[in-house]
C-alpha cells in the first residue's frame, strides 16, 4: 500500500477542482481556511469563499441561508467545534429545515492529539446519529474522501463528513467503487471480521495481516457510511465470519460499534463481538497515534483483541 496525502488535503484539492467548474460551490469557514487547507481555494476563488470569523453557530446559520438559495455549500470547521458549538443549528437549520449543507468536520476524532479534550471530537458520530435527515460519512483514505466530497456536492441533502490531518495509506484497488450506504470490503476472510471506519481502517487492516500469519482468516471492511448504514453487509458478515470486531476513532458510546450491536441484537444474531474505540474516561495525552496505541487501536492492539476474542469464545 502506498502512503497517500492527508484526507484533509484530498478534500481541499477536490473542492478546488469542483469549484473551478461549478460556481455554485461555496466554502464557508470560521477562521478555519488555514486549518482546512483552503488558502489556495480562497486565492483562486475569492468569490466562492465566505469567512464568518470564530463563530460556529453563525457558520452553520449562514451556510443554511446560502444553501437555501441553491448554492452548494461546504461549511468547514474543526469537527470538535462544528458538532458541539453549532449542534442546534445542525439539528434545526440544516436537518429539520432540510437545507443541503455539507458539514465538513476537519481534524476529527483525536487528530489534534495533545491539544486535548477541548479539541477532540469523539462524540460527533453519537450526537449526529441521533438527528434525523443527515448523511454521515467517515472516509478512510484519499479515494473515499474524494468520492465523498464529489457525492456531497451533488446530493442536495444534508451531509456530515469528518476526517483527520495525517497522511493516509491508499487502501483501495483501482477499480473500487464508492456508494453512499455501502461499505467496502478490503479483504475477504471468515474467522474474524474487522468492521472499521475512518482512520482506524488501516490499523485494522494491519492487524488482519498479523492474524493471517498465524492462520486466522480475517475480513476487513471500511464502513465509511455511518448513515445510511450498510445493514446488509453487516448481516452477511455476521453469517459468514465467526467473530466481529468494530473499530472507530470515537467514544465507544453511541458510535459504530453500538450501531452494529443494535442491528445484530434486533435481528436475533449472536456472534462473538468486541467494540474497540476510545473508552469513557479522560482521554490520555498524546499524539493521535499514541492515543490510538494506548487504547488498542493499532495493529498490535487489535491483533491481541482478535486472539482474545477467539480464545474467550473457544474459537481459537
Amino acid at each position, binding site marked *: 500500500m502506498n502512503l497517500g496525502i492527508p484526507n484533509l488535503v484530498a478534500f481541499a484539492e477536490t473542492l478546488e477542482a469542483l469549484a473551478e467548474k461549478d460556481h455554485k460551490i461555496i466554502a464557508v469557514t470560521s477562521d478555519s481556511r488555514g486549518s482546512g487547507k483552503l488558502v489556495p481555494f480562497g486565492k483562486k476563488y475569492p468569490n466562492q469563499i465566505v469567512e464568518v470569523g470564530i463563530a460556529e453557530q453563525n457558520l452553520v446559520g*449562514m451556510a443554511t441561508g446560502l444553501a437555501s438559495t441553491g448554492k452548494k455549500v461546504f461549511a468547514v470547521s474543526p469537527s470538535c467545534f462544528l458538532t458541539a458549538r453549532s449542534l442546534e443549528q445542525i439539528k434545526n437549520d440544516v436537518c429539520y429545515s432540510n437545507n443541503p449543507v455539507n458539514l465538513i468536520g476537519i481534524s476529527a476524532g483525536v487528530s489534534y492529539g495533545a491539544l486535548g479534550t477541548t479539541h477532540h471530537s469523539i462524540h460527533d458520530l453519537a450526537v449526529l446519529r441521533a438527528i434525523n435527515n443527515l448523511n454521515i460519512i467517515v472516509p478512510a483514505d484519499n479515494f473515499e474522501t474524494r468520492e465523498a466530497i464529489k457525492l456531497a456536492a451533488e446530493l442536495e441533502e444534508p451531509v456530515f463528513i469528518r476526517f483527520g490531518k495525517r497522511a493516509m495509506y491508499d487502501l483501495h484497488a483501482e477499480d473500487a467503487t464508492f456508494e453512499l450506504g455501502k461499505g467496502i470490503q478490503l479483504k475477504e476472510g471468515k474467522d474474524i471480521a474487522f468492521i472499521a471506519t475512518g482512520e482506524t481502517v488501516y490499523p485494522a487492516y494491519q492487524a488482519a495481516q498479523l492474524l493471517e500469519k498465524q492462520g486466522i482468516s480475517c475480513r476487513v471492511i471500511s464502513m465509511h457510511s455511518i448513515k445510511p448504514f450498510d445493514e446488509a453487509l453487516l448481516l452477511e458478515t455476521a453469517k459468514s465470519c465467526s467473530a466481529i470486531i468494530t473499530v472507530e476513532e470515537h467514544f465507544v458510546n453511541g458510535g459504530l460499534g453500538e450501531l452494529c450491536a443494535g442491528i445484530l441484537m434486533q435481528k436475533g444474531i449472536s456472534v462473538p463481538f468486541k467494540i474497540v474505540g476510545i473508552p469513557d474516561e479522560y482521554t490520555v495525552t498524546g499524539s493521535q497515534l499514541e492515543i490510538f496505541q494506548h487504547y488498542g487501536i493499532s495493529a498490535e492492539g487489535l491483533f491481541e483483541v482478535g486472539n482474545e476474542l477467539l480464545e474467550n469464545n473457544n474459537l481459537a
Partner: protein
Amino acid sequence: MNSLAIQKKSVEYRKKILTYIKKANAGHTGGSLSCIDILNVLYNEVMNVSPDNFHHPDRDRYIQSKGHSVEALFVVLADQGFFPESDLETLCQYQSHYVGHPTRKVNGVEQNTGALGHGLSISAGVALAGKMDKKDYKVFTLLGDGELAEGSNWEAAMIAAQYKLDNLIAIVDRNTLQITDRTRHVCNTEPLAEKFKAFGWAVKEVDGHHLEELKETFLSTPYEKGKPNLVIANTTKGKGISFMEDVLKWHHGVPSDEEFEKCMEELEKLTKTLEIV
C-alpha cells in the same frame, strides 16, 4: 391597500389568532398579538412574495426568528392564499402539519424556526447570496427582544455589517416582556439602538402598531448604503385586548370561554368603529 382596509385586516387577524389558539388550547397569545401589525404590513404592503412566486429565486424572504408567534404567521399566510384557512382548525392537533412553531411543511414558511437565535444568521446567509448573485430581493426577519440574549444573534449582527448586507432588515418586536419578567429585569438587552449602531447597523425606531409608520419604515430601506437595517418596533404584548395588554401571563395563556367572548366583543367593537369611519 387603503388605510382603512389594512386596519381592518389587523383586527380580523387578531380575531383569527385568538380563535385558533382557543381551538388548539395552546399558543403564544401575547407575542402573536404584539407582532401581527408588523406581519400585516409586510405581507400586504411591502414584500414581493405570494403563493405564485414562492419558489422564485427573486422573491423577498421573511424568516420568523421568534418562531413561537407562529399563530400570527399562519393566519397571515392563510389570508395570502398559501393554504386554506380551514387547515388551521388542526393547529397543534395529532398528525397536523400545523405545528406550534413554523415548519416548511406549511406552504409559505421559508425556514423551520422555534429555537431562538437562529433567524438572523440564516437571513444573513440568504442576504449574502442575494449580494453574490446581484439580486434585488430583501430579507426580513423578526426577532423578539428577549431573544436577543442569545449570543448567536450578535455573531450574525457582526457578520451582516462585515458583508455590508443592506438588503437585510431585522425587526425587533420590542414588547419588553418575556416569559419570566420584563426583559430588562431578566437580561437587559438595552440600549438596543446604540448596541446595533455600535455593531455597524443603521437603526430606526417605530411604533410597531402604527401601520402607516411601519409601511414607510419598511419601504425606505436601506437606511444607509452598505449597512444592515434594524427596525426597533415598539409594541405591546397582547395588543388589542384590554385585559391582555402588557400582562405577563398572556405570554402563552389561552383564554377561557368567558375571556374569549370578551376578546371577540372588544375586537367586534373595533371593527364597527372602523366601519363607521
